[in-house]
C-alpha cells in the first residue's frame, strides 16, 4: 500500500499489514526529522505524480527481490523534530531480499518521487537541496 498524507504515519500498522505466513523477514525503514538545529520541517508533494511513481517503484521492488509485501508512506505538511517523514516496510521469505527491497525503495524514492522538504529554523525556511532529477 502507498500513502502520501498529512496525517501521522503508523509504522506499526504498516508492519502488521506486511507480515505474511510465507515471509520469514520483515525489514522497515523509518525516516524522522532530525534535530540539527532546526525547529521543524515542511514536506511538499506533487501528490498524484508521487503516488504513481511510488507504486511503480513498489512493484519493481516486489518483482526484483521476490517480496511478499511492500508498504510505503510519506508524510506531507508541517512536521516537528522527531516526527516521521517516511516509512518503508518490506517482507520476504529471507532476510537478504527484505533488506535489499527496503534499500531499493528508499533510494529510488529519493531520486524519483516528486517530494520536497523545507527545513524551518529560527532564521526562516530553507529548501533541502535535492539530488534526485
Amino acid at each position, binding site marked *: 500500500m502507498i500513502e502520501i498524507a498529512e496525517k501521522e504515519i503508523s509504522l506499526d500498522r504498516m508492519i502488521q499489514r506486511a507480515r505474511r505466513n510465507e515471509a520469514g523477514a520483515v525489514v522497515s525503514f523509518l525516516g524522522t526529522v532530525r534535530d540539527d538545529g532546526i525547529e521543524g520541517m515542511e514536506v511538499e508533494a506533487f501528490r*498524484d*505524480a508521487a503516488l*504513481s511513481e511510488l507504486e511503480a517503484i513498489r512493484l519493481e521492488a516486489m518483482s526484483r527481490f521476490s517480496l511478499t509485501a511492500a508498504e510505503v508512506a510519506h508524510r506531507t505538511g508541517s512536521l516537528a523534530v522527531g516526527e516521521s517523514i517516511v516509512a518503508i516496510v518490506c517482507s520476504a521469505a529471507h532476510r537478504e531480499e527484505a533488506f535489499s527491497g527496503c534499500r531499493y525503495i528508499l533510494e529510488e*524514492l*529519493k531520486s524519483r*518521487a*516528486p*517530494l520536497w522538504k523545507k527545513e524551518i529554523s529560527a532564521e526562516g525556511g530553507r*529548501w533541502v537541496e*535535492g539530488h534526485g532529477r
Partner: protein
Amino acid sequence: MKIKVLAFAAFGEILGREREVELKGDASVRELLETLASIVPGFREAAFEPTGILRDYVLLMVNRKRIDPERDLSRILAEGDELAIFPPLAGG
C-alpha cells in the same frame, strides 16, 4: 488555449502552487515559460541563467511525464495540458 501550471517547492513559492495561463494559438513549453517569466516577478531570475538558458535545476513534467529540457522545450502544448515545474527531488 488554457494550460494549467503546477509549481512545487521554491518554484511553488514564486509561481503559486497552481495557476492557469492563457496562451495565444499554438505555443511551445518554451513560450509558456517565457510567458510566466514576463508576468511573474522573480521567475525569470529563478529559472533562467543570465544567458537565457534554462537553469539545470529546473525540472519539468507535461501531463505528469517528465520532459527533457535539452530536447523538449519546443514541444507544442495542447488545450488542457498540465505543466509542472519543480527543483531537484528531495523526499525521503
